[in-house]
């Protein structure tokens, strides 16, 4: 079975928004979920790579790791005023290490719609598809 390219998407959820990442590996799916966070704020194609930020988190459960990962990205976005255009993610067991590449928010160019305030435990899911690929999803509060 041919595997579709890694990708990110949103799903509708009442007042907030769901983020979903798909990838051939768990790490790739996590990176795509991070891209979905950027897409809540702006069109990721408008974000350039002028800086990079190291991120790390740890959790004994895959869902907990996703929750912590998304919150770690949100924290960097909020405290550094950055948007990420790409991530390199490595997951070994309970530990995640990553690097996010992006740039500071430029209001005129990015037209940032809304801040992401944090991940929630609603629709929090890490799963493997029939073709062996990964899908991860979570509703984020805006």
């Amino acid at each position, binding site marked *: 079975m041919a595997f579709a390219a890694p990708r990110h998407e949103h799903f509708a959820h*009442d*007042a907030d928004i769901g983020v979903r990442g798909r990838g051939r590996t768990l790490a790739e799916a996590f990176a795509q979920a991070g891209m979905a966070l950027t897409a809540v704020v702006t069109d990721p194609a408008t974000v350039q790579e002028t800086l990079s930020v190291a991120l790390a988190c740890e959790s004994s459960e895959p869902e907990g790791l996703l929750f912590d990962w998304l919150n770690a990205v949100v924290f960097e976005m909020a405290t550094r005023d950055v948007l990420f255009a790409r991530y390199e993610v490595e997951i070994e067991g309970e530990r995640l290490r990553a690097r996010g590449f992006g740039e500071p*928010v430029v*209001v005129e160019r990015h037209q*940032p*719609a*809304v801040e992401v305030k*944090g991940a929630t435990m609603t629709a929090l899911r890490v799963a493997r598809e029939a073709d062996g690929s990964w899908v991860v999803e979570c509703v984020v509060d805006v």
Partner: protein
Amino acid sequence: MDLSLLTRRSEHEWAIEPRGKMRVPGVLFASEPLVRAMDHKVYEQVTNVATLPGILSASFAMPDAHWGYGFAVGGVAAFDPEEGVVSAGGVGFDISCGVRSLRTRLTRAEIDPRKKELADALFHTIPAGVGSRGQIRLGAEEMDRMLRGGARWAVERGYGEAGDLERVEERGAMRDARPEWVSDRAKARMRDEVGTLGSGNHYLEVQEVVEVFDEAAAGAFGLRTGDIVVSIHCGSRGLGHQIGTEALKEMLEAGQRYGIDLPDRELACAPIRSKEGERYLGAMRAAINVALANRQAITHLAREAFASVLKQADLTLLYDVSHNTCKVETHAVGGRPREVYIHRKGATRAFGPGHRDLPDALRSVGQPVLIGGTMGTCSWVLVGTESGMARSFGSACHGAGRAMSRHQALKQWHGRHVVDELEGRGILVRSPSLRGVAEEAPGAYKDVTEVVDATERAGLARRVAKLVPVVVVKG
């Protein structure tokens, strides 16, 4: 919601009779059309809250109730101090999000010729939207002073006048705030955000009083038809959210240890009299102070902007309400007064006449209850009533609530068209993001007037005045 699941107690009161693990009934205050339109999830969430230890009287839903994390937005629940629990999901993530309204001593006729300048001045003076920063950068000690002092701290720093404070809940400073229980990460999210509006559904509006429903209360509030008021809707920014997220994780573990049976993870809670419960309450109170300080700092900026355009403007507080809180209050339970911990999530405190916490000028009338609408429709001023004290622990609705997701709104509207259409109706919108405006289009929200009507008919609060937007600064 399926009406057959409910017992209709009166025209605007519906009960979910206790069954299973429910300790008390659920009670929904709403008109029949509003109940029909409510998601079934509201039914589940009101039912879930009714199972929590120490809950008193009932698990309530206000007329604008909709799905939320754990508790429904529009959920109200009071707990016994000894047997009860506190839940981060019962407060909401944007702790102490609320509305502050100011009178201006201006009339519509006076501002109309200067409306555009006023809109531009407000937009340039008040930081709004993603990535905006305030003028104050807080060091560690000053941060702690702010977390303890709230609006009082802001006034001491020169952002406003001492007279402002008596018209803020808690007289401007929430007691028993514990800055030492606010994490460094939460503080980092607030370092330079005091005096910023934020994004999403937060705004500052210049509004006109277009209709008065209760002359006596409007007189006491200083509102007449044709008057201009300013309303600010925002909360505790990233700090409140960080506290909520951390508490959710901590309470999930604590709840298991204390043997609390949870029907939903987002309902995570801890006993009020536990280390985790006290830590959350102390941090949450500090976050309330952040929201109070923030609305006070924005008030100061709004005064500067008005003074630069209309020198005769005199902005004084009508009132400041918070609609995401857990507070200790005294209420009648089973006919006798007792102390309760009351969660109001997307619900406004609505104290009736005579309440000792109200300032002298308002005590005989009742508390102003400020309800935000959308940038294209209207907002409302209500007043707390004695019957509301008896029915819902002195709680009322908080706003319109979304009718569709941001995604759907974005498909349906273009930001530019929304701005142009509103301008054609005399409403000037200023926002750093046209996409943000599209996602917040008035049509994406429910009809706030229907909610307010039901609130009055259910006896929770009484309508005083209707406000329509003239200038909107959107985050």
